[in-house]
């Protein structure tokens, strides 16, 4: 059974290929086919994991060697799939949540002219995501990593008729590319230092052989990739814009699966991070900073999907925070729970948009509970789960992480994380009151979505309520014990206040946040629609996520302009006033160059002679 693991990624790939070539002819059947292959993949994944559970804990790592991918000299990389507790958890999340989102999409994308294409991309995404988490070496992981990036790009820009969608797609690709480059270099560095990319060797004996400096460099380069993919500060700018994609895409890729790849990467490579003394603290700081920063930004959003996007960033920040403390099981528990409730939240938001004619601005909603009861219930369950109200899933996941900070003696981190937890509860109950309760603030009739959309919502809600059973205590939960062979166990701290006190504080904060949210946005006593006029500075800062986007465009353009000007001036002296105007932007640099690609044979020959002279000089130096 374990050897059948290859079917799990192969089925979505087959679905993608069929829909790509015959999507038009299949018509409506395209969605059903895509959902069917996903269901099959999920069923197989369940059987595989059941098989894995039958093995004794220390033997729960099965490598399925499919074929030799590259074997050239000492450079050997196989297409090897690794089934161990960590990847098993991930494939269950990816196929499980993925299946529900595929089913939901059948209804959501109904009537789209590129229906088949959409499911083809979606299936292809799942294939690459599964390759990412099942890879047994860094090169195969990188294949999945690039692949999900590409699919994410295609899906964000799926409605490219909107200029904003096409731009968002480009922005996502370019921003994550910065991190990916770091990761690529990190992988190359692993190969340079250890001569292999195999997890078994790199993470086993290999990590111990690395010098402190090398381990730090590798860990931080890999983390750069994780920061880009998981939209952590400072490479987070693409995620809010990525909401231009269809909502199921936001739910699947930009909430439940792809963005968590960074967390998976850190958990998977923890041996490398632990071989360095500074890598994990940096992960911790970046995670915590993003958690707080994105939580604040989420409060300033009026677009329901953008609010959820910042919330995703914040939650991912919590996962990195946990990983940074060495509490990988906690990070993974939050990952699993978050996949359920965030997918639920996104799909409910999509259901709202579906029912209101693509309305995403919460200022124009309100009182939807009457017309869309099922959606309202689903969103509320998701929000309460995220807010950390017991006994929903988010409570266990987040509470463990916050408590772990306290019991491991990280007091400042604990305080900040508690603030973050409070803000999370605040920002997520805010849309509940804004959109679903109160009175309708816009014309038009809203209608409830069809069952093909609400049934997946119900199933996800079950997950959002019940996923907490996977981790009932900080180190002794089911998931923590299951993951132990993969990520080790985090020493339960003995310092700080007792568990009961911590839980009490946590719950109190969550309830307080819900109350505050009700008072501001739900009670009608605060004119929150007028806040932007009354406090333009605050609203502007929160709404634009502290002007980071503006800062980046300034940072990118300013040196570009300056450099262009410099190059142009040099040109003017040499090329006799051929350059007169000074353009703007980074492209300037490459625009200057073609000036001496003038099409003149004489200039070409001259360049040739320069090269010849230089080559002979370089060789002459060897005399």
């Amino acid at each position, binding site marked *: 059974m374990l050897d059948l693991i290859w079917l799990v990624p192969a089925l979505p790939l087959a679905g993608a290929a069929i829909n790509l070539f015959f999507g038009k002819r299949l018509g409506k059947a395209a969605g059903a086919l895509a959902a069917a292959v996903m269901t099959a993949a999920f069923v197989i994944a369940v059987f595989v994991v059941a098989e894995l559970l039958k093995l004794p804990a220390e033997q729960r790592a099965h490598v399925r060697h499919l074929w030799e991918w590259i074997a050239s000299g000492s450079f050997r990389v196989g297409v090897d799939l690794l089934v161990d507790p960590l990847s098993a958890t991930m494939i269950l999340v990816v196929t499980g949540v993925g299946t529900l989102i595929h089913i939901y999409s059948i209804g959501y994308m109904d009537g789209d002219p590129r229906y088949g294409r959409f499911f083809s991309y979606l299936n292809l995404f799942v294939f690459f995501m599964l390759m990412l988490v099942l890879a047994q070496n860094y090169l195969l992981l990188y294949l999945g990593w690039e692949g999900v990036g590409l699919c994410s790009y295609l899906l964000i820009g799926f409605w490219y008729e909107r200029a904003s969608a096409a731009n968002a797609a480009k922005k996502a690709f370019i921003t994550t590319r910065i991190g990916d480059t770091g990761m690529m270099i990190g992988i190359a560095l692993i190969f340079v230092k250890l001569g292999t990319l195999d997890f078994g060797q790199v993470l086993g004996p290999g990590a111990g052989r690395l010098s402190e400096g090398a381990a730090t460099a590798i860990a931080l380069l890999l983390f750069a990739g994780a920061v880009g993919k998981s939209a952590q500060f400072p490479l987070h700018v693409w995620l809010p814009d990525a909401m231009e994609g269809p909502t199921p895409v936001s739910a699947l890729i930009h909430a439940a699966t792809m963005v968590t790849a960074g967390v998976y990467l850190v958990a998977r490579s923890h041996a490398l991070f632990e071989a360095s003394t500074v890598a994990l603290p940096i992960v911790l700081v970046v995670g915590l900073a993003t958690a707080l920063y994105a939580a604040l930004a989420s409060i300033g959003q009026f677009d329901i999907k953008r609010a959820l996007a910042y919330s995703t960033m914040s939650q991912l920040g919590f996962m990195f925070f946990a990983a940074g403390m060495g509490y990988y099981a906690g990070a993974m528990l939050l990952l699993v729970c978050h996949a359920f409730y965030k997918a639920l939240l996104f799909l409910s938001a999509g259901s709202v948009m579906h029912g209101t004619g693509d309305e995403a601005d919460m200022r124009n909603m309100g009182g939807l509970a009457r017309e869309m009861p099922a959606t309202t219930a689903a969103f509320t369950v998701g929000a309460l789960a995220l807010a950390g109200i017991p006994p929903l899933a988010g409570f266990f996941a987040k509470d463990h992480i916050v408590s772990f900070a306290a019991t491991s003696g990280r007091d400042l981190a604990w305080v900040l994380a508690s603030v973050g937890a409070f803000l999370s509860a605040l920002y997520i109950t805010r849309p509940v009151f804004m959109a679903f309760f109160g009175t309708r603030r816009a014309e038009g009739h809203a209608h409830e979505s069809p069952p093909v959309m609400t049934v997946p919502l119900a199933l996800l809600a079950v997950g959002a309520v019940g996923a907490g059973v996977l981790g009932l205590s900080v180190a002794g939960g089911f998931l923590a014990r299951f993951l132990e062979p993969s990520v080790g166990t985090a020493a339960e701290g003995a310092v700080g206040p007792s568990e009961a006190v911590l839980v009490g504080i946590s719950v109190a904060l969550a309830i307080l946040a819900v109350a505050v949210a009700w008072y501001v946005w739900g009670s009608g006593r605060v004119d929150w629609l007028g806040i932007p006029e009354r406090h333009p500075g605050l609203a502007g800062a929160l709404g634009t996520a502290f002007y980071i986007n503006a800062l980046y465009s300034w940072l990118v353009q300013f040196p570009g302009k300056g450099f262009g000007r410099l190059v142009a001036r040099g040109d003017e002296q*040499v*090329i*006799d006033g051929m350059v007169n105007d000074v353009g703007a932007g980074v492209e300037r640099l490459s625009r200057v160059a073609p000036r001496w690609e003038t099409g*003149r044979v*004489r*200039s070409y020959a*001259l360049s040739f*002679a*320069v090269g*010849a*002279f230089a080559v*002979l*000089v370089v060789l*002459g130096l060897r*005399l």
Partner: protein
Amino acid sequence: MAELIVFWVFAPLAVASGIAMLLQRNAVYSALFLVVNFFALAVFFLMLGAEFLFAVQIIVYAGAIMVLFLFVIMLLGVDREERLVEPIRWQRPLGIFLGVGITAEIFAAVRAGVGFAAKAPGGFALVNQGGNAQAIAKVLFTDYFLPFEITSILLIVAAVAAMVLAHRRRGAVSGPPPAGPARPQPDREAEVAG
């Protein structure tokens, strides 16, 4: 001693005619300077004991190829003077600098590599024993048989090339719509350079 005198007569002649050929505006004069240069080179071959090359140099280069050149120049018009104004000012000094530089580099390499050898290497006389032409024939028909034959393929390509280019111009005039007004310049230059 006699060799030295001959060398010092013909070496400046070769260099001077080379430079004059480059600087001459009139294509016919240019070609004639090239003939002088070819002759000077032929003399060097003779001095070095390569009689066969001496003869080939005069017959093929100074004879056949130069006549072809002159024919082409005549066909294109003797009066046409090349415009020697350089539109990009710094290009010419840089070109001269690079020309001198590359020459200097190669000179340095030769100087460091073989020094100023005054005599031909010993083996040369041995090879040339039965006469220079015979020696060349021997290697050409044994060791260098293949390159010698491959040259024939090169000549076929050249012949087809000439045919295609000649045919092309007629086609461009009478054939289906060319993309723009036909400018004859490139073809003409091709023939001059070829």
